[in-house]
């Protein structure tokens, strides 16, 4: 039995590998309490002590606040799961292109400071693909701080072809916040007394965890193709003129047409529609296409003479195995849009995609991927590092 921890940029999921459901879902950010301890529980951060919100992961999904991460792991294992770290194998999911230096820092924290007996770093998209029974896949992960596209061929991540953009959930939060403060300005409860005002980072965090999140779940949608390409007849036919009503904080009705709801999410696919400063090539479909092409090119150069893979074969393999995951991918219409956009870019290929239809499962997909890796039938299949491996490694390093 091991503990699996998935530190996302927004949410951390953790639990034992021998049960289907995680025991803990908490925030990947935290508030420091008066007594110096850290609050990771969402409920506690919503109604508990005030203070600035700190993050632990950078926009690439790589930890930089190692001190807080160590405390979080300790809290997860010892306080919440009731197990001793020195006796518990731990599996952690990480980004597909984790630099070696960061990998070393992980080992130092887990094996050196936390004294975990055996430890495994699992590449998140690879784990997702394998847990869904595929060893070749194009994993499109639309998370909070970033969207990541990872091509996997025969169980190996094509490192050079991993593509990423910052246009994901947090970016949508910003769009929603901007729109709503424009049409329905919300009064700041504690206006007037500057000493009593909450930290802006906490207010932002709380907003994004409450009404912004609610607005995103109920209102946002993605148009089947570029909005500006649709004329009014097409909009009408697709029902995009239909009005959706949203009750904001039980006080105000926000009425938007479906087209307006689509416009809000359009920035994911066309960052330029939001600001001219953004790079058009970072749109979601653009990075997916880029990743496919790069993967085709790199497998063609690396394959040996006996096992020739043409770029076309790689393209075909990836495009029929598109896996869509990440909490922000739950916006309705997103999967269809990616497929539609790709069919323009790769008209000669057959496309097939999969996104877990169970909302809860998709939100926990990365953690469940880690569980699958932790439960591989043979010890040798996993990439476990033990205390003695770690010591040997350190000796080699120092000599």
């Amino acid at each position: 039995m091991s503990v699996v921890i998935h530190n996302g940029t927004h949410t951390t999921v953790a639990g034992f590998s021998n049960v289907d459901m995680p025991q803990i879902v908490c925030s990947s950010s935290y508030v420091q309490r008066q007594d110096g301890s850290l609050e990771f529980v969402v409920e506690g951060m919503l109604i508990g002590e005030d203070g600035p919100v700190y993050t632990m992961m950078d926009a690439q999904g790589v930890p930089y606040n190692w001190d807080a991460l160590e405390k979080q792991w300790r809290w997860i294992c010892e306080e919440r799961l009731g197990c001793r770290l020195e006796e518990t194998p731990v599996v952690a999911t990480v980004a597909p292109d984790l630099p070696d230096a960061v990998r070393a820092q992980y080992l130092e924290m887990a094996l050196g400071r936390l004294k975990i007996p055996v430890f495994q770093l699992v590449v998140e998209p690879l784990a997702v693909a394998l847990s869904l029974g595929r060893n070749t896949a194009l994993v499109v992960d639309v998370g909070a701080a970033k969207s990541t596209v990872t091509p996997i061929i025969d169980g190996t991540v094509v490192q050079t072809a991993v593509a990423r953009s910052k246009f994901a959930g947090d970016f949508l939060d910003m769009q929603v916040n901007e729109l709503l403060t424009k049409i329905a300005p919300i009064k700041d409860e504690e206006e007037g007394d500057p000493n009593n005002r909450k930290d802006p980072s906490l207010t932002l965090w709380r907003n994004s965890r409450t009404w912004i999140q609610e607005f995103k779940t109920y209102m946002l949608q993605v148009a089947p193709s570029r909005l500006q390409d649709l004329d009014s007849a097409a909009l009408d036919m697709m029902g995009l003129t239909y009005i959706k009503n949203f009750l904001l904080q039980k006080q105000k009705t926000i009425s938007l047409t479906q087209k307006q709801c689509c416009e809000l999410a359009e920035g994911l696919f066309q960052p330029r529609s939001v600001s001219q400063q953004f790079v058009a090539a970072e749109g979601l479909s653009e990075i997916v296409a880029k990743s496919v092409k790069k993967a085709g090119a790199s497998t063609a150069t690396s394959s040996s003479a006996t096992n020739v893979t043409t770029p076309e074969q790689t393209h075909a393999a990836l495009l029929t195995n598109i896996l869509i995951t990440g909490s922000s991918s739950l916006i309705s219409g997103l999967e269809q849009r990616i497929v539609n956009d790709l069919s323009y870019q790769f008209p000669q290929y057959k496309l097939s995609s999969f996104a877990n239809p169970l909302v809860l499962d998709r939100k926990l997909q990365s953690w469940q991927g880690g569980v699958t890796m932790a439960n591989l039938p043979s010890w040798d299949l996993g990439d476990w590092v033990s205390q003695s491996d770690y010591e040997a490694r350190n000796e080699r390093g120092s000599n």
Partner: protein
Amino acid sequence: MREETFYPPQLEIPTVVYKTPEGLYTSKSDSGNVKVNPLVDGQIVDLDGFLFFVKLIYKSYLAQRSRNGASPEVFDMELSNIPMLMLSHSSWTHHQLETIAQFVFEQLQINNFMFLPSALASSYALGSLQNCVVIDIHTNGTDVIPILDYIQLGHLAVKVEHGGSQIDQELAKLLPQWTPEQIEDLKKSSIFEVLSEDAKKSSSLNFKHGEDEGALDVAALVTSDRDTREILEEREKNKDKHNVENSEQENNVFVDRHGKQIIVGKQRFKGCESLVAEISKTVGRVLSQIDDFHKLRAMWENILVVGGTTSISGFKEALLQKLVEDHLIGEPAHEKDIREREHSAQNSVKKKAKIANSFLNSVDYVQIPTAISLAKYPEYFPEWKKHGYAEVPFLGAQIVAKQAFGHTNESFYVTREKYEKKGPSIVWDVAF
């Protein structure tokens, strides 16, 4: 357990053990022994104490059935193979669950055993609800646990920091001269209730103001809209006839644990407000984490409230009322006013408009909940109906025990054979 129908629990045992100065556990409260509560609000805080407590109950049962060993033959038949089902709390850790399983098989020598999370047990008691939310009110805390597709979502469960004792604290503020015992007795008496808004309106008593100290409130009589004589007459009548509603009486009487009659005023309708408000807010936050709309809708329509506090008459209704007030999605009153005014203004302009036009459409919202309701309690357990449903997890446990153990399919519980093959971690392979 009797076969035909499910009976309410026959025994209620305080979860208390004692620790001797030598560190051993005992059931005796001799001097020098320290009182230990192994369970606090469902959580195991003293595992060894808890195991001792389980052993104590099991041994007492065996002793009782065999008349303290006077009829040993029952061990051959009746007592030889008692399966055990234990209700577990969502906070119990893996280590605790495995240790309990080990204890049950190795110390108690029980051959068939299973755990059932108590929130799930509640949902099974109410006809196996697929999607619901369980609000379990303990003494000092309240668990809000969502259940989705028969799975308890422990990772989304939230603990409210207050429980039934919050009511005692509120009452102590209102009745400062009362002892904690008297307050507890008042809370448990039948005249302590939470009145609905309707009952408050229809009652002859004035609920707007007037705080009395347990005796006749003259001010309330004077300020009441009704004729003073009429109220006094009614009071006289009350003395003869007892069929006047509790809510219609200015004062009422209950009997405390020492058999003394105590008169109490309107305080008997107060004290639950802050607990109800806190639980309602938490339920809203917990359910906002679920974004499977179809199931979320079902959860809002199946709210289960369990725990001793729920036997207070009107408590569940008051909680439902508060949930509706806090969370039901509907058009805000001021917006509706504006729309109605605009609409009637329009209508008066074109008076010849058809009748259908004078009808104001309601606004449809994308959000959930548009309906909130408590789960329906089963009508087909007559004994339980009489008893009340505050201990409904026990009923669920009875139902599950009967189904799981009364079956040739062994996949729902741990048998000795399975335990011996795999050890305590077998409990994870047979989760119900």
